């Protein structure tokens, strides 16, 4: 399963009521191409910060579900935030990590998730539901379930090296416009 295929499956199940914070790089650009909407907050930079932003949002609005679409490189950069997320005892949080074991936007350099298992780490930290998937069918089944649950969940999606997406548009909105639109959606 390529990352783009995984994003298409995930997008299909996000019922457009979920506020989604999306990590920088190809993940944001692919989500923008697959399903753009005011419920998406695209990170253009500040690598590693998507899940922290999600934490602040989830604490401030306990009645909405917050979905974070993270990357392996992003999460590795700000590992400690897993502890903050679990310590905050939030239930309205689904942390999805698309793990291709690489930094694609900068030339596809290896990331160290080639050696370590982020799902095991999330489980040790104390995420209540932890899944690791690599098949599209199982991803579809699990994401459908996790969207509805009111539990702190972690979904590691292992995606393959093949299928670099060509002709991927850059995100056309300005950062301020992305923010304004997202805030209007949340009100």
């Amino acid at each position: 399963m390529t990352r783009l295929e995984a994003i298409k499956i995930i997008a299909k199940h996000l019922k457009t009521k979920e506020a989604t914070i999306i990590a920088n790089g190809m993940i944001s650009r692919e989500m923008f191409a697959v399903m753009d909407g005011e419920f998406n907050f695209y990170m253009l930079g500040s690598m590693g910060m998507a899940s922290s932003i999600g934490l602040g949002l989830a604490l401030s609005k306990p009645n909405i579900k917050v979905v974070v679409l993270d990357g392996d490189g992003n999460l590795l950069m700000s590992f400690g935030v897993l502890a903050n997320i679990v310590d905050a005892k939030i239930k309205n949080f689904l942390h999805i990590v698309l793990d291709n074991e690489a930094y694609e936007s900068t030339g596809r350099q290896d990331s160290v998730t080639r050696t370590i298992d982020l799902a095991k780490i999330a489980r040790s930290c104390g995420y209540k539901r932890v899944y690791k998937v690599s098949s599209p069918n199982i991803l579809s089944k699990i994401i459908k379930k996790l969207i509805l649950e009111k539990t702190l969940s972690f979904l590691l999606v292992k995606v393959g090296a093949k299928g670099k997406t060509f002709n991927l548009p850059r995100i056309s909105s300005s950062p301020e416009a992305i923010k304004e639109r997202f805030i209007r959606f949340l009100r």
Partner: protein
Amino acid sequence: MKTVEFYHLLKNCGIDFFSGVPCTLLEGLIAMASLDSKVIYVPAVREDVAVAVASGAYLGGRYSCVFMQNSGLGNCLNVLASLNLIYKIPVCLVISWRGFKGKDAPEHLIMGRSTKKLLQDIRIPATVLSKKYLETQTLSLVEKMKKNNIPVALLLRKGILV
């Protein structure tokens, strides 16, 4: 001004979300925020996490304050420069100023002389809090923060709060 008065001043500005990484100079403020049931306090693992969490809180409709020692400012440059300043997400940074006037332990001396310049360079409005004008300085800077949706910094030296 007493620490408790300054804390209430921040709250009266509409701030009800706090995050930070400790410094001895901020001990009283952090204690108050973490024990106050009317606000949320996140003891962040790192200063950039504190700023990003505060930014998420802003998206969720709240104004936030982030406590950090100036040694942690370097840890936040990326999030401030590529999130808060470009998306226009306000946050009130309360930064304790170690190494002020070159009088401190060695690890504080470089940031001690560079803190103001760093903030100036990335265009974050900053005020060095004085004992006499602390209240008006704070009110004025927080108003600027809200009006322009930008991060601002209150620099707190030793002895300003009692």
